[in-house]
């Protein structure tokens, strides 16, 4: 009796110190054996019998355990206790994870959360980039805009709104127009004059806009003529005025230089040459491209065709330039 007690005591004192998973292999082996027994169709009676014998064997082992080496005892004991423990642990983990999952999904649905904002489109979850075609083409009928059957409410971005009909009639509009035409009598000014300037003879004084002398507009010097400006607007091809002027100036400079050269027989050094090229580059950044394609057959002389391109020209000048732009 005393020996049993001491044994029990011993086992209890040992258990905490021994790790739970001394030999997982043995436990699986044992489990496999169990399954084997059951699936082999052994009757419950037999199984019971076996259990009893195994228990009694176990008891015997316990009694004789003092002489038995420690590890084997521990393994045997662990298997018996661990099986339900492992099941319990698994169940607890399962329940906890399920609860966490349900909590997480509930959090997602909670109105006002960040996830909600993303769902409603208030926050962008996708990165900024080149826009693509939306999946829908109809802003009145798409997954984000849903009109109720009765047309009395609309759901936009997840929020339901009532629809109040517009009551404005044609007559009311006309009444407002008449009111305004009485209140505001106005003629759009077509002539702008600085204060102090004299009124041209053939001008209706009602259409003059007087610009105060300190107004930013008043500082504008209209040194370009109206007809000239009009011509420039409708200019479709050819070398723009400024570039042409610069080009001509350059030409003159080059000629002058060449004449000088002939006189002095001085070789142009590369630094000088670069200096002359600069105006080209500053005005036609797409020069190379224009040269390659040379689609601009509107321009007669080849030199100016090189110049005939500009940084933000993607219009009608060169179609390949346009294609390139689309691909960017």
């Amino acid at each position: 009796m005393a020996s049993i007690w001491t044994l029990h005591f011993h086992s209890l004192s040992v258990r905490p110190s021994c790790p739970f998973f001394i030999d997982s292999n043995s436990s699986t082996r044992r489990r496999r054996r169990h399954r084997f027994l059951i699936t082999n169709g052994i009757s419950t009676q037999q199984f019971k019998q076996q259990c009893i014998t195994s228990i009694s064997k176990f008891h015997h082992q316990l009694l004789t355990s003092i002489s038995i080496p420690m590890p084997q005892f521990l393994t045997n004991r662990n298997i018996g206790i661990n099986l339900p423990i492992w099941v319990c642990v698994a169940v607890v983990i399962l329940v906890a994870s399920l609860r966490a999952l349900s909590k997480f999904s509930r959090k997602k649905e909670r109105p006002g959360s960040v996830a909600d904002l993303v769902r409603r489109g208030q926050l962008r979850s996708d990165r900024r980039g080149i826009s693509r075609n939306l999946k829908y083409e109809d802003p009145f009928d798409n997954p984000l805009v849903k009109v109720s059957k009765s047309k009395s409410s609309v759901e936009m971005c997840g929020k339901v709104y009532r629809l109040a009909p517009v009551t404005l009639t044609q007559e009311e509009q006309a009444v407002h127009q008449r009111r305004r035409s009485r209140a505001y009598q106005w003629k759009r000014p077509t002539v702008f004059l600085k204060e102090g300037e004299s009124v041209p003879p053939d001008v209706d004084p009602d259409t003059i806009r007087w610009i105060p002398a300190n107004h930013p507009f008043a500082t504008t010097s209209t040194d370009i003529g109206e007809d000239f400006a009009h011509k420039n607007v409708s200019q479709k091809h050819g070398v723009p005025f400024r570039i042409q002027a610069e080009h001509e100036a350059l030409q003159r400079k080059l000629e002058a230089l060449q004449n000088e050269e002939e006189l002095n027989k001085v070789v142009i050094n590369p630094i000088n040459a670069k200096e002359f090229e600069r105006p080209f580059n500053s005005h036609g950044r797409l020069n190379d491209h224009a040269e390659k394609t040379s689609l601009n057959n509107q321009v007669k002389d080849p030199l100016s065709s090189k110049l005939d391109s500009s940084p933000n020209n993607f219009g009608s000048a060169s179609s390949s330039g346009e294609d390139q732009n689309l691909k960017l």
Partner: protein
Amino acid sequence: MLSLYNHPTTTTTTTTTNLKSHFPSITHLRHSPTFPKPKPKTLTKSLLQWNRKPQLSGETPRVVVVTSGKGGVGKTTTTANIGLSLARLGFSVVAIDADVGLRNLDLLLGLENRVNYTVVEILNGECRLDQALVRDKRWSNFELLCISKPRSKLPIGFGGKALTWLVEALKARGDKTGGNGTGTNGSGSGSSSTGSGCPDFILIDCPAGIDAGFITAITPANEAVLITTPDITALRDADRVTGLLECDGIRDIKMIVNRVRTDMIKGEDMMSVLDVQEMLGLPLLGVIPEDSEVIRSTNRGYPLVLNKPPTLAGLAFEQAAWRLVEQDSMQAVMVEEEPKRGFFSFFGG
């Protein structure tokens, strides 16, 4: 997009226009499976959802000035978003920033680094019109034209006339590509979709006030979009500007009420959209809610309507663009109220 558009028969087209005219009257067959509907109708409907395109009404180019009177109510925002919406719907658009000196449409569109030439350079003969047009890389049928650089001077003596010439030149662009479609311009045939022909829409972003800049901006316009916010100061200016536009012969004026807060309207802290309409007596092109995303998109140079998924304000801009194309106006406005927990709302319908 155009090829898709060929599909609907005349009957379906008419129904769509009818349905559209009183938004939001489009029946929602796809989202209400609880209602058994005749099969063929459902089929038409679902096909239409993917094939619909607004019907362009009116003569092209439609020259629309976006104006407000009061500053900072959202003219530039509206121009950028409606312009890009129109481009996405397949129309070719030229947006003109007529804000002399204080231009910011280029910033909103994120094209500020590509503006090298402006109208001032065109008038001076320093560049051609097509060189000053900045084509958007996201939507190639959208082009931006700035009237001037911050410190350059527009000759105001004929500023308005200059804009009219520009419109004429843009119109003639279509003739040119159609007329002598030589080897010079290989893409001449598909003019309207690629944007090299006559544009469908010319949107003019008007500066605030009723100064010389305003006069310049409204000169070439045939129609106007008036932007206002539901506050009394903006409304007074809006009424005045409307009066001036009407005096100038622009009769087709529609308004967009911007920065609407349905929650404040519900609490009677803000004038409702219908109140605004009662005061101005103008048809509604759109109602844009106050949306923090507007500011963010401004900072990014990436207009709202390109956002995925679209925001509330982005959707409202898209709808306004659609109505603009069809020369339509709103027949109902959204009012906030507690959602009725009905049977169908349970299903999300």
